[in-house]
């Protein structure tokens, strides 16, 4: 109770079980973005044993790229005529975003991480922190960030919703709702008629006042009845943009799995991840594999950034810290799944999204960001190798 008194931000909210399916679906959709970013973390860690702190900033650069592309298509903040959108605009945006992000990832690897490969691992970690800070604060000098711009939501041609009804609403409540609607309509028309009569007087007369009150009360009753009716059923509302995001995410993951599992380069990647030095001795060009890994991870982050800013949360404000929180949460997702483990990152990302939205569902919205870290600490203490990681003791 003392704690509850001090932290008034903690409502012990009544949990509404009817909104749970919606929250879980939200979490899964949200988690697919985290999964896409987490893949970059997990692949780089698998190969270099390096936590790429700058990955979130690569994501940020992708978001800025799609912003610039959307401006090039005429969706500028001070455009006088709203331009018509096309589906291929989105395609150009995502490709540009992936290209720039991939390039950024490769450059960061080449100039910041590769010179340090023979140093202790902590040196690379510190460089990664430095790189992340440099892109966040250095980016502020070069990228438009005040006021924070956003990608025009109108560039997204898919703006509808998909509504799935799980449990039909209670039919007995329909009658109540209909009657409330009828009452509302009559009260409204009576008040409208009276309003016409009293058009010239500033204050309504006693009769007019009564009619106005009655109309307002009927309005409230109707909304309440409607709410009751809607809440008696269970349905899931999904914006089409989010569905597209998730579908594209899973397509990209499929492509990635194909690349890793069935191509020669993917096999080389797995070999390098297994044992860096032996792979080099077997004639694998380790440097080109590392570059390839960074390309893969960063392009996925770029795709995630474009979809997050355009389709998933249209109108989201972009600044140079855009990648900070998604990056951190994706990292936690990678740890949950066992860092270095590709399917684990996907599962971890989805799990992370669900956990986050469940925390919001329980009423602790302001603690959502902390939840990620709590999960991280618990996972690291209880199962440091994650859900799917192999347990290998660190050798001397």
């Amino acid at each position: 109770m003392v704690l509850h008194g001090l932290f008034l931000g903690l409502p012990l909210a009544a949990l509404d079980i009817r909104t749970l399916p919606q929250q879980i679906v939200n979490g899964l959709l949200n988690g697919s973005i985290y999964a896409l970013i987490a893949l970059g973390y997990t692949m780089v860690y698998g190969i270099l044993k390096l936590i790429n702190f700058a990955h979130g900033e690569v994501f940020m650069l992708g978001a800025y790229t799609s912003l610039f592309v959307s401006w090039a298509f005429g969706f500028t903040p001070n455009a006088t005529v709203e331009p018509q959108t096309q589906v291929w605009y989105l395609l150009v945006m995502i490709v540009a975003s992936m290209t720039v992000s991939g390039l950024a990832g490769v450059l960061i690897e080449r100039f910041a991480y590769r010179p340090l490969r023979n140093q202790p691992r902590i040196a690379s970690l510190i460089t990664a922190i430095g790189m992340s800070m440099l892109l966040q604060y250095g980016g502020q000098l070069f990228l438009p960030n005040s006021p924070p711009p956003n990608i025009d939501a109108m560039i997204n041609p898919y703006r509808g919703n998909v509504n799935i009804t799980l449990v039909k609403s209670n039919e007995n409540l329909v009658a109540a709702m209909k009657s409330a609607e009828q009452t509302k309509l009559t009260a409204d028309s009576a008040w409208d008629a009276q309003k016409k009569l009293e058009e010239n007087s500033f204050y309504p007369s006693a009769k007019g006042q009564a009619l106005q009150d009655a109309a307002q009360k009927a309005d409230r009753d109707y909304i309440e009845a409607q709410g009751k009716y809607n809440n008696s059923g269970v349905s899931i509302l999904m914006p089409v943009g989010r569905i597209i995001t998730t579908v594209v995410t899973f397509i990209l993951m499929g492509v990635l799995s194909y690349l890793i599992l069935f191509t020669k380069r993917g096999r080389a990647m797995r070999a390098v991840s297994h044992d860096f030095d032996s792979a080099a001795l077997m004639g694998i060009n380790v440097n080109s594999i590392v570059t390839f890994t960074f390309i893969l991870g960063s392009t996925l982050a770029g795709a995630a950034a474009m979809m997050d800013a355009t389709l998933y949360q249209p109108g989201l404000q972009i600044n140079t810290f855009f990648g900070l929180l998604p990056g951190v949460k994706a990292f936690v997702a990678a740890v949950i799944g066992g860092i270095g483990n590709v399917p684990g990152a996907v599962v971890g990302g989805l799990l992370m999204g669900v956990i986050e939205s469940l925390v919001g569902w329980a009423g602790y919205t302001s603690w959502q960001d902390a939840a990620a870290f709590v999960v991280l600490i618990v996972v690291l203490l209880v199962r440091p190798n994650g859900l799917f990681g192999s347990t290998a003791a660190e050798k001397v």
Partner: protein
Amino acid sequence: MVASPPVSKSNPVAKSLVSGILSAVGCVALAFLVQYISGQFLSSYANGLVFQAATFVTLAVSLNIVNGITGQFSIGHYAFFQIGAYTTGALSLLFWKKFQGAANVPMQEDIWIVLMMFFGIITSAFAGWIVGLPSLRLRGDYLAIVTLGFGEIIRISAENFTFMGGATGTKIAPEKTVVWLAWLLAFAAIGLSRNLLKSVHGLAFLSVREDEIAATAMGVNITRTKVAAFVIGSAFAGAAGVLYAHQQTFISPDLFKMDGSFIVLTMVIFGGTGSITGSALAGASLFYLPEALRELPPVPFASLVGIVLGLIATIGALKRYSDQSHAKTSVKAATMIGIIVVGIVFMAILGKLLSFVPSISAHAPIQGSQLRLVVFAVTLIVLMLFRPQGVFAHHEFSWKWLRSVLARVLPKQKEGLSS
């Protein structure tokens, strides 16, 4: 058994006691001297800077105990700083007015702050103990992530701590810039680290850094050592947080963002992990550097772009040269200075040329204060590329060390032996 040791004129124990007392008195005197000088001759703004420099020296030296001496890579040091600040914030909000009203003699602000430091140390040391526990199971980058996460949890908790104004923050009562106390704390942190390294316990800390398994084999209790390092480091950070809160008077979670931890980390790494004097000097100088940037006139955007491009080219050239050349140290140093000079000229020319590009010259000039954290980031990266062990590495600053370095770098005389 053995013959009694040769009788010396002075008792070593008494001698060390006397020198200890003398240095303690010296530190107190020095702290008051700093307070007197900065209070008398500096503006109140500069006085605040002198105070904050001490805070950052304390933070850097205390993080050095964890990161440098014990080798536990912690990047959430600001959390303890924040815990100290919020402890005094809460207690001052609750009790400061009451003490003022109830007592016949109003409570002295200095005494109150010293009292609060005591509580701040307790809470932050407790937090340090909690964070220290996972360090038993985790190492390297995993531990780093946990400390980072802990710092964020503390900050988000503070955002939900409505008693202290939540995310907006709150104003706390006695406003006082206690320069002497801040510097005394910094001296205490330095002295404690130094004495720790001279003692048997300090050797245990060092052995944990060098090799945990060997340390266990030699009978060092790793658990206790690691947790002790965290507790000591966080206690100093908490005390510094108390002082900082009373200087700032308005405390909010925004003061304690993740960047702060990275700044302190940069200081420790810049000074050389494990070097006490290194962290102290780096703490003071790296604190002052961005403050000096504020004074700079706005930089034209074209020059900035020129500097960035020139800096990248210069760093690349330097890195390539330092990796591949096998010349004598003196020749190498001279060449590198030459490369830097050429780089600066290149930057200037590039900046001038770019100013003719209309889209670049139209950009608004950049204020020096915007470069504050960029400087830290660049410092970190350049440091890691050229001298990952830090400026002082594991050494302590002393005249003897300086002479030996100079002897190595400067051209040797004929009679000098080659190393």
